[in-house]
């Protein structure tokens, strides 16, 4: 149907328009082809001014049903190339080419028998009517349909762009305007107020949380400084802050109740244990890493997947766990298989552990500390 602009044609036009030799144009286009893929692989997103953005987009795994056997199957997640046109280009496409195509459709429709169009219009009206929430609306719609002579209906369809009443005469608009106007307003108003209230409370909550966070961090640095000055051992300085922030606060008694709550469901670790651990750890920094490494156990294995070209741990984490932030777990289970987590050979088998609910709980301070610790260990290996 549509004409094509072939690669050679593009090259020739490009050469003549830009005033360069065809050789150069060809070199450019080849580079464009190769580099766009490479850039997509390395950067996930390539923005090209005057055209749009190419992007690698993850499609989440989803459940489906085998058509022949009726069994439930899981369609695996994958990545695809998505293209978003630039705003200007989008407008151009929407406006200009539309005119030519509209003319086509108008021509086609004029050739069609008018009765067929009328029947189609009625069908749509019926469908919309069936979807109606109240029987009153249904009736009003049907009434408005019967009032309209069938011969007039096709007209609005033939000129969909020029005439706004295209929607108006037969469909829901008039019925809303004439009869359901009052009801609608009464129904909608409280709805709107509610959502406003909700929004306000939400904003308040977020502000409160932010305040708490800022206060917490401000306070924490002070505590760390205080403890460090007490212990005054150079080795442990770095390790104290991230790994044991929870226990420090316990020591200080800033908000003991909150931490008790968060700790008890986690693994029923008593405060004394943590205190003991903390005291041990502050004595010798290297011990804490080792003991914590052994703590990490996983619920099992999902799979072992060879490393794909241009992939990375964060993307695998997104595919299996739904978020990139869990990649340190992948580092943890595979730390013996590569040196630098940024440079993994293609084909290296990567073990993907099953994560327990607690390990994925990002509201838990301990989980965050664990992930952060793993991340720091991984970072230490990056060159």
């Amino acid at each position, binding site marked *: 149907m549509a004409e094509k602009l072939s690669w050679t044609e593009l090259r020739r036009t490009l050469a003549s328009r830009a005033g360069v030799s065809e050789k150069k144009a060809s070199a450019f286009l080849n580079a464009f082809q190769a580099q766009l*893929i490479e850039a997509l692989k390395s950067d996930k997103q390539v923005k090209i001014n005057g055209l749009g953005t190419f992007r690698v987009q993850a499609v989440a795994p989803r459940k489906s049903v085998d058509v022949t056997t009726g069994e439930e199957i899981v369609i695996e997640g994958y990545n695809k190339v998505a293209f978003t*046109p630039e705003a200007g280009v989008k407008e151009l496409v929407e406006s200009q080419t539309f005119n030519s195509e509209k003319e086509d459709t108008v021509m086609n429709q004029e050739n069609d028998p008018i009765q067929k169009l009328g029947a189609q219009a009625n069908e749509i009206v019926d469908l919309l009517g069936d979807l109606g929430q109240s029987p009153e609306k249904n009736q009003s719609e049907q009434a408005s349909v019967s009032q309209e002579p069938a011969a007039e209906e096709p007209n609005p369809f033939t000129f969909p762009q020029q005439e706004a009443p295209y929607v108006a005469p037969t469909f829901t608009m008039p019925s809303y305007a004439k009869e359901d106007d009052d009801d609608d307003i009464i129904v909608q108003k409280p709805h709107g107020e509610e959502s406003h209230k909700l929004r306000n409370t939400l904003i308040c909550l977020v502000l409160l949380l932010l305040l708490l966070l800022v206060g917490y961090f401000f306070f924490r640095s002070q505590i760390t400084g205080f403890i460090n000055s007490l212990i005054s051992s150079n080795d442990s300085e770095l390790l104290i802050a991230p790994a044991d922030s929870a226990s420090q606060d316990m020591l200080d008694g800033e908000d003991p109740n909150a931490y008790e709550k968060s700790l008890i469901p986690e693994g029923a670790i008593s405060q004394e244990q943590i205190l003991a651990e903390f005291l041990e750890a502050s004595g010798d920094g290297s011990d804490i890493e080792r003991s914590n490494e052994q703590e990490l156990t996983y619920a099992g294995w999902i799979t072992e997947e060879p490393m794909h070209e241009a992939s990375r741990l964060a993307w695998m984490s997104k595919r299996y766990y739904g978020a990139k932030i869990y990649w340190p777990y992948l580092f943890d289970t595979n730390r013996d298989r590569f040196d630098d987590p940024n440079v993994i050979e293609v084909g290296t088998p990567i073990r993907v552990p099953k994560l327990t609910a607690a390990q994925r709980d990002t509201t838990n301070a301990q989980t965050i500390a664990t992930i952060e610790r793993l991340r720091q260990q991984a970072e230490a290996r990056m060159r």
Partner: protein
Amino acid sequence: MLTKEFIGLLSEASGLSKKEAEHLLTTQNAIIRENLMAGKVIQLQGLGALEVKERKARAIVHPRTGERSISPSKNQLVFRPVANIKDEIKKI
């Protein structure tokens, strides 16, 4: 990756200067736009095709008010990658 960085890559790979690459890229985009306007399908060898497709008018429901209306048909610029690009990207 932004256009500037991409131009840097292009000039490296093609042996053209950055200025030339930028000039060629803008001209290429202009040509692509014009041909799209003319209703042509742009074949980018080894990458895919850029094409204007019509999106048909459909009935839509406003999610909050429940109001129904018809979204008019419009045109969309779509990119169809070729099979091997699709496969390459799929399993990243």
